[in-house]
């Protein structure tokens, strides 16, 4: 129990003291035995007040402080610092919110507001009496990062992390790097070849000896947490002797007797079972499908110096301080019969058309026939109001329109029809839509409730639509080919990564960041970040932006070499716990594990993993769990404090306690005033302008500006043109 408590009650320049009788309250609490200092202060957050508080703590040997002012969201860290500067443990300080949750909402009942403030302060004093000194948990962070997925997002991140001197493990499931970009041909907005982008990133990666690239590799096991994740990796063999010269390898590939459907070219052509995805694919070493070749023992024997079918899988252990997940997306694959896919000839997907164009440099031929017209059907597998993909894939509109421009450039005489729901060529991509319209592409609009129907008539396909651009007229479009503009999907195997690292997935099944705007690359798992299209549909620019954002977070973390975690986490009463497992079941962070303690099995908390949510505490049948700062003693003492019957005399004529002296010295200004004055430096401004420039909430600016006006620190200076807002300027005389 704390014996020497300091209580500081703030006027907030009238924002509190106009309604709450702060003078009476500070007098009242001063009478209590364990309260050594009880003051009412014009602005507790002012520099001068903070200094006075530090002096009090030292002079009166205070063992705890209670600050009664505004919401803890504003100044919790200010006063934790004050405590720390004075040599007091920052957790022996409690903030009581008597402004946002008392003087302002109860400004209509000043006496009741004062009674409530008394209860709130009483509760704060009770809470601080039970407060414990807590130390931040320091976690050592290894200077290494694991990146999962070598698409454009992962490759770019690897380079940046290595550039700042960190050890990087880049793990790619496929035998070749690049992800979807390598498959794309020319890319919209930059017109570069996708494979060229990947080649240049790969050569950049090779410049850094501190990047280790693992291809054909998957994560099998994960343990540990922020600072030291222990990773077990499975590396599949390539079954080829890397020391054999390229010419020999090439001739063995040419002679290889087996061909299968080529997955990289989406089954449009065949490939050998000794292969590279495409001739320039990197790393520049082919892969052997050992299973398939086993039926040709003579061939294998003939080239035994090149082929090494007995090579074994390797299990590799790694240690990483932080993890970045950049596992990308899957293309949506239409169901059989969806718009005639796989049931009607010449109905293919957009990624298939992109590969077809790569394979046909001069003439677009499919199924032995030259293609002269193409109808694109948009939003296939996206924006399904009833299906599982309710999201917009964002890239498909632009990609389809860009493909249509490429078609005209490459093959000249070809007609494109675009059958869309809405065109979303957002941002700079809008110019592509204009170009496509200018080159003679035709656009038709359908609605989800009246989907286009595709039928075959002789040699042609007929697309029947209700066109919303011509008053829902039933139209029939004859075309050689139908291309389904398919979108992006969460990867089918993403769940494995989600389970290994406990990364939550959203209702769209993509990985979830903590906050889409404020913490866009962080996950709830400390030290684990996400970037690129594994978070949701993104183009390359957006994928790289998020990847660089995550990279800078990781660099900062690794550079420091340690992580200071909040001590507000769970702890177990070992005597009470009987390891029933109930707490571990609800902990999303895997922070609770069975441990042995003096021969007894009990729950143990991993301090680096516990997020301090407290979800485990109510489920424990033995009440063995408490969260620091939210212990039963503290919470119940607060409740008792609210209920304490405190005698407060009602002031005659309300409690208007306008301060007597109107001069406030600069060092007494609260921090918000300084922020407001900083943006008012050189002229006159309205409240909305001040809010905009200072990034402060406009209501907060209003209150403070009114108070500053009251004390003559700012003065009104006419109205704006629309006669809506007053201008305010700094009062020269106040200096």
């Amino acid at each position: 129990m704390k014996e020497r408590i300091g209580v500081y009650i703030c006027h907030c320049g009238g924002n509190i003291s106009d309604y709450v009788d702060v003078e009476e309250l500070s007098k009242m609490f001063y009478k209590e035995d364990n309260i050594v200092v009880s003051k009412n202060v014009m602005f507790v957050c002012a520099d001068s007040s903070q200094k006075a508080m530090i002096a009090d703590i030292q002079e009166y040997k205070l063992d705890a402080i209670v600050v009664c002012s505004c919401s803890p969201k504003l100044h919790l860290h200010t006063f934790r610092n004050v405590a720390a500067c004075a040599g007091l443990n920052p957790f022996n300080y409690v903030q009581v919110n008597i402004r946002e949750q008392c003087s302002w909402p109860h400004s209509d009942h000043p006496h009741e507001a004062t009674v409530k403030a008394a209860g709130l302060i009483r509760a704060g004093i009770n809470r601080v009496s039970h407060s414990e000194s807590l130390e931040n948990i320091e976690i050592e962070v290894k200077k290494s990062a694991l990146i999962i997925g070598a698409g454009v997002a992962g490759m770019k991140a690897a380079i940046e992390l290595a550039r700042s001197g960190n050890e990087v493990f880049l793990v790619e499931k496929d035998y070749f790097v690049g992800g979807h970009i390598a498959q794309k041909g020319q890319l919209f907005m930059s017109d570069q070849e996708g494979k060229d982008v990947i080649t240049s990133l790969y050569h950049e990666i090779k410049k850094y000896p501190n990047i280790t690239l693992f291809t054909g590799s998957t994560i099998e096991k994960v343990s540990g947490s922020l600072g030291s994740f222990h990773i077990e990796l499975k590396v599949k063999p390539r079954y080829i002797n890397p020391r054999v010269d390229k010419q020999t390898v090439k001739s063995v590939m040419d002679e290889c007797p087996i061909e299968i459907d080529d997955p990289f070219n989406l089954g449009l052509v065949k490939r050998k079972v000794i292969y590279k995805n495409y001739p320039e694919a990197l790393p520049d070493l082919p892969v052997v499908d050992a299973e398939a070749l086993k039926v040709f023992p003579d061939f294998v024997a003939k080239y035994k110096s090149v082929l090494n079918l007995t090579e074994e899988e390797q299990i590799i252990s790694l240690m990483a301080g932080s993890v970045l997940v950049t596992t990308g997306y899957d293309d949506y694959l239409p169901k059989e019969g969806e718009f005639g896919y796989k049931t009607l000839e010449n109905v293919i997907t957009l990624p298939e058309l992109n590969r077809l164009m790569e394979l046909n440099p001069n003439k677009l031929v499919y199924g032995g026939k030259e293609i002269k017209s193409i109808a694109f059907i948009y939003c296939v597998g996206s924006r399904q109001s009833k299906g599982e993909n309710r999201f917009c894939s964002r890239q498909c509109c632009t990609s389809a329109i860009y493909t249509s421009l490429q078609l005209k450039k490459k093959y000249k005489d070809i007609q494109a029809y675009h059958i869309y729901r809405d065109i979303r060529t957002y941002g700079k991509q809008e110019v592509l839509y204009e170009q496509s319209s200018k080159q003679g592409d035709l656009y038709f609009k359908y609605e989800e409730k009246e989907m286009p129907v595709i039928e075959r008539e002789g040699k042609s396909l007929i697309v029947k639509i209700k066109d919303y651009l011509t008053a829902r007229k039933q139209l029939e479009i004859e075309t050689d080919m139908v291309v389904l503009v398919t979108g992006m999907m969460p990867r089918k195997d993403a769940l494995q990564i989600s389970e290994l690292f406990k990364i939550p997935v959203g209702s769209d099944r993509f990985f979830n960041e903590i906050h889409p705007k404020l913490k866009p690359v962080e996950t709830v798992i400390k030290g684990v970040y996400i970037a690129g299209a594994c978070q949701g549909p993104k183009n390359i620019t957006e994928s790289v932006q998020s990847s660089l954002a995550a990279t800078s977070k990781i660099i900062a973390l690794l550079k420091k070499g340690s992580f200071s975690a909040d001590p507000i986490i769970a702890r177990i009463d070992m005597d009470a716990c009987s390891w029933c497992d109930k707490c571990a079941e609800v902990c999303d962070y895997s922070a609770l594990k069975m441990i042995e303690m003096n021969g007894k099995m009990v729950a143990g908390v991993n301090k680096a993993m516990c997020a301090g949510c407290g979800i485990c505490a109510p489920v424990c049948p033995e009440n063995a769990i408490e969260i620091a700062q939210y212990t039963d003693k503290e919470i119940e003492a607060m409740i008792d404090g609210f209920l304490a019957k405190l005698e407060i005399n009602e002031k005659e004529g309300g409690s208007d306690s306008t301060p007597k002296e109107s001069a406030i010295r600069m060092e007494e200004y609260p921090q918000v005033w300084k922020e407001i004055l900083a943006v008012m430096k050189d002229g006159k401004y309205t409240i909305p302008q001040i809010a905009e420039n200072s990034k402060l909430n406009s209501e907060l600016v209003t209150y403070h500006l009114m108070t500053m006006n009251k004390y003559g620190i700012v003065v009104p200076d006419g109205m704006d043109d629309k006669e809506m807002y007053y201008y305010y300027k700094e009062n020269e005389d106040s200096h």
Partner: protein
Amino acid sequence: MVFSTDKISDPGIDQAGLRKIHYSPSVYVISLPCSSGVKPKWIMHALENGFDGVFIAADGHECSFSSRCAEYTNKIVEVSQQLMKAKNINPKRIRMAALCSVCAEPFANHMENFGKILANLED
């Protein structure tokens, strides 16, 4: 007695104050990291010692700790209602609703409605 959460519903309650939206001064708030961390024991403590009702301003789907937050908070309400029944406390004295970080009016409305319900209870 209201249990709110540091990141989501407490900022919503602050907003009500900031905008001078009035609600009863007999409302007292304790903010926690997550609404699924309220112990039924605390709820009982409040009800047995003088509070007329307990309101949990839950995070619901916005919770950044767990996607199952709403389910867990619900469970806490259920367990508490069992305890309340055993002590002859009307189960209507506990209530829960999701509240977001800008839910100023909804909070004031909840307080008004809950206040009316509590005033009419005879237990």
